[in-house]
């Protein structure tokens, strides 16, 4: 079977791109690594009923009609599909049901979404420590929630998930808010722009006040964190207002914002730039979400953090860009149809400078301060291990990787890439942009040798 457009990721951006493209008659292949559509934000949306609506709220439920429409259209949607490569010739390699396949199309839209920023403090790799997004996944997929957990970090998602936990009737031991007070003044200069989404700001206020009203302990003015415990998490040690305070809990949820998941876009060879405000890499794109390689588009949080509604708008814009490029719609139609999505996008993005600045994670939480804090989880390399390697003169992420294997494990740098880059920058007094990132290679997800070895025979393109 041949396709006009291959879309990778069935979250808000991917579903919306698929719908837009299919509506215009394009043959669409939508690949997603999850069992059901939705991405992180609308995870398990198809199964959601009244109970979920109460706990997870209307923003979550807004994904339901999107998934229904995607299902209703003639879209080749493949779930449980692990995409492990996209080449510069738009050849997509993916595996499903133990079978690896290669398929090529004239347009490919990457909608791979965001991932949580690493939170490399001492003990963050212990069992019982999770990223807050994973805690939210549990709530969405199985209704499970851990009693008496500690939520630590900063950013809207931390308060959103904590609020969802309270809605589910689960108690929280403490919220440890690491938002730096020093962020406030620079953030305030972005407030006028953000006021266009005053409703979102109010929503954040509402979560916070409801959390306070619930009597949940909130600790702020935090300068350092350590997870307690030797073999599993037993609590969190918090340096607040200059003194250490120990809080007991078997569950510690960490969060300090999300960053674009760029492993696939880097491995595809797209050009990227460092975004100093969002402290992350993002693929370079034009006004139609077109990337530096002809025919490849990037939509949604994978191209820069904008949130669910921005992702939906970008999915539409990218699909229109692809349709225009393939000659499936004329440019006048394309431009006219993009108008409302562009309006949504600009409204959604106006609040980002304020949020990014207000919730900018502090230096001491992006680069660990404790020598024995693990940076590279796959190879179990600590701050000291990495710093020692930098000190012998290996001052690039790829030299470091070749020398001490940091970033070479199965996660392909997802847990250590940004930390290693910022550590090198700090140590050598350069900018993070100048230091650069790991060279990423396919497969971007572990792939069974058996599948790859059989690729030639089973190739159906």
């Amino acid at each position, binding site marked *: 079977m041949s396709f006009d457009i291959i879309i990778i990721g069935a979250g808000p951006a991917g579903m919306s791109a698929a719908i837009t493209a299919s509506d215009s008659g394009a043959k669409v292949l939508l690949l997603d690594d999850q069992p059901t559509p939705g991405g992180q934000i609308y995870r398990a949306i198809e199964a959601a009923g009244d109970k979920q609506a109460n706990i997870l709220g209307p923003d979550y439920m807004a994904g339901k009609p999107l998934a229904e429409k995607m299902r209703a259209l003639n879209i080749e949607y493949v779930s449980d599909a692990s995409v492990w*490569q996209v*080449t*510069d010739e738009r050849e997509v*390699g993916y595996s499903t049901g133990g079978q690896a396949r*290669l398929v090529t199309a004239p347009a490919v839209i990457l909608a791979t979404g965001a991932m949580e920023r690493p939170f490399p403090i001492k003990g963050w790799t212990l069992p019982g420590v999770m990223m807050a997004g994973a805690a939210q996944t549990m709530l969405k997929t199985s209704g499970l929630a851990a009693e008496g957990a500690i939520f630590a970090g900063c950013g809207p998602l931390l308060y959103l998930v904590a609020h969802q936990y309270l809605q589910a009737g689960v108690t929280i031991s403490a919220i440890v808010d690491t938002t730096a007070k020093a962020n406030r003044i620079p953030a305030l200069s972005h407030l006028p722009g953000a006021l266009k989404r005053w409703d979102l700001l109010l929503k954040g206020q509402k979560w916070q006040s409801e959390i306070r009203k619930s009597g949940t302990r909130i600790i702020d003015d935090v300068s350092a964190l350590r997870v307690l415990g030797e073999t599993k998490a037993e609590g969190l040690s918090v340096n607040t207002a200059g003194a250490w305070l120990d809080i007991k809990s078997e569950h510690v949820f960490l969060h300090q914002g999300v960053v674009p998941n760029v492993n696939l876009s880097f491995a595809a*060879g797209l050009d990227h730039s460092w975004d100093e405000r969002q402290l992350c890499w993002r693929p370079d794109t034009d006004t139609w979400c077109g990337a530096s390689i002809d025919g490849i588009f990037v939509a949604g949080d994978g191209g820069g953090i904008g949130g669910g509604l921005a992702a939906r708008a970008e999915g539409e814009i990218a699909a229109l860009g692809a349709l225009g490029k393939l000659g499936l719609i004329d440019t006048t139609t394309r431009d006219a149809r993009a108008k409302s999505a562009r309006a949504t996008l600009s409204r959604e993005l106006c609040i980002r400078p304020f949020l990014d600045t207000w919730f900018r994670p502090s230096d001491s939480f992006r680069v660990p301060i404790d020598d024995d804090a693990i940076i590279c989880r796959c190879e179990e390399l600590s701050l000291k291990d990495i710093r020692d390697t930098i000190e*012998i*003169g*290996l*001052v*690039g992420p*790829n*030299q470091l990787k*070749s*020398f001490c294997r940091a970033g*070479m*494990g*199965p996660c*392909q740098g997802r847990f250590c890439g940004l930390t290693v880059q910022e550590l090198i920058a700090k140590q050598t007094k350069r900018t993070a942009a100048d230091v650069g990132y790991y*060279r990423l*290679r*396919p*497969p971007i997800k*572990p*792939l*069974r*040798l*058996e599948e*790859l*070895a*059989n*690729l*030639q025979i089973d*190739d159906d393109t």
Partner: protein
Amino acid sequence: MTTPKQSDEDKRTADVIVIGGGIHGCSAALHLVRRGVSVIVLEKDYVGRHASGVNAGGVRRLGRDLAEVPLAQASYEYWRDMPALVDDDCGYRATRYLKVARSESDMDAARQRVAELNARGFTHEDVIDQKTLRGFLPAAASHCVGALHVDGDGSALPFQTTQAFKRRAQKLGVVFHEETPVLDIQRRAGNWRVDTPIGAFEAPTVVNAAGAWGGVLAAKLGDDVPLKAHAPMLAITARMPPFATAVVGALSGALSFKQFENGTVLIGGGVRGRAFPDTNRTALDMKGMSQFLSTARDIFPIMKRANIVRTWAGIEGYTPDNLPIISAGREAGIVHAFGFSAHGFQLAPGVGEFVADLATGATPKLSLDAFNVSRFQQLGPA
């Protein structure tokens, strides 16, 4: 990147300028400085960035072209005691290297090979039978009937090794300029003048150890070599239970296979991706890679369960006969050492000695005739 000391950075002249900070450039620099010769190394990226730093790390005499065997033997003498040469063990593990036979015709080829070597006085390779093979490699499939074998060959960590040569050379006084590409080179009153973005360097002798970029440089110096850049590919797995201590190849079907101490398995085997030397980029060919992955699975059934976590390729220069160029150039004061065609890693400690001989007017203790740059002249450019 190395930042030379202020006094070194100012140094614009030396006895020898080495172009290329791969393992051959670093080895030549080290051997030269050990003889009291002053050396400047110019590297366009960082030391070990390309094939030298990202190869499979095989330290292998096994199966080499007969012309290369003496070089490999000479290098082996250095490998046996790397700390003495570079003050670092380079991750070198001497185990055994096997080329597995999967048919009687493989076994015949192995016996013929050993006979040819013995006739030339080399006795390091031997043929082992199925029982011995199973003793060395219990995980090998039952259709593996024997192997060509060398006791004492093994593997090292290529980036660590290249860096060790650099650090040792640097410690003895060699000046390295990384991120310093050569823009132009020309004869200037008995010296070679090498222009770079940070200024000109001069020396009476220049060593071309520019790897896949060596052909372009050689052409500028009047030596035409039809060198081609390719990107041999490698894949590495997630950790597996230990099952292979030897480094393994195949007599029919290209394969380079070894399991590290941490359990991960490295698999390569001659299949090439696309190389773009002008931009340092390589593109992988997953279909091509399936060839050596199937060979690995055929020899080790346990590999069916392996998970590939990463693949990569380095940019390497290949000559038409797959033998390197180790040779004085047509012009005086030029020495070439490049085009190792994806099997130069093991050779580097020894070849550095011979390159130092050529650069200082000494006579190498081995004949380098098979590696002369003039052998391609009738072929013309690629």
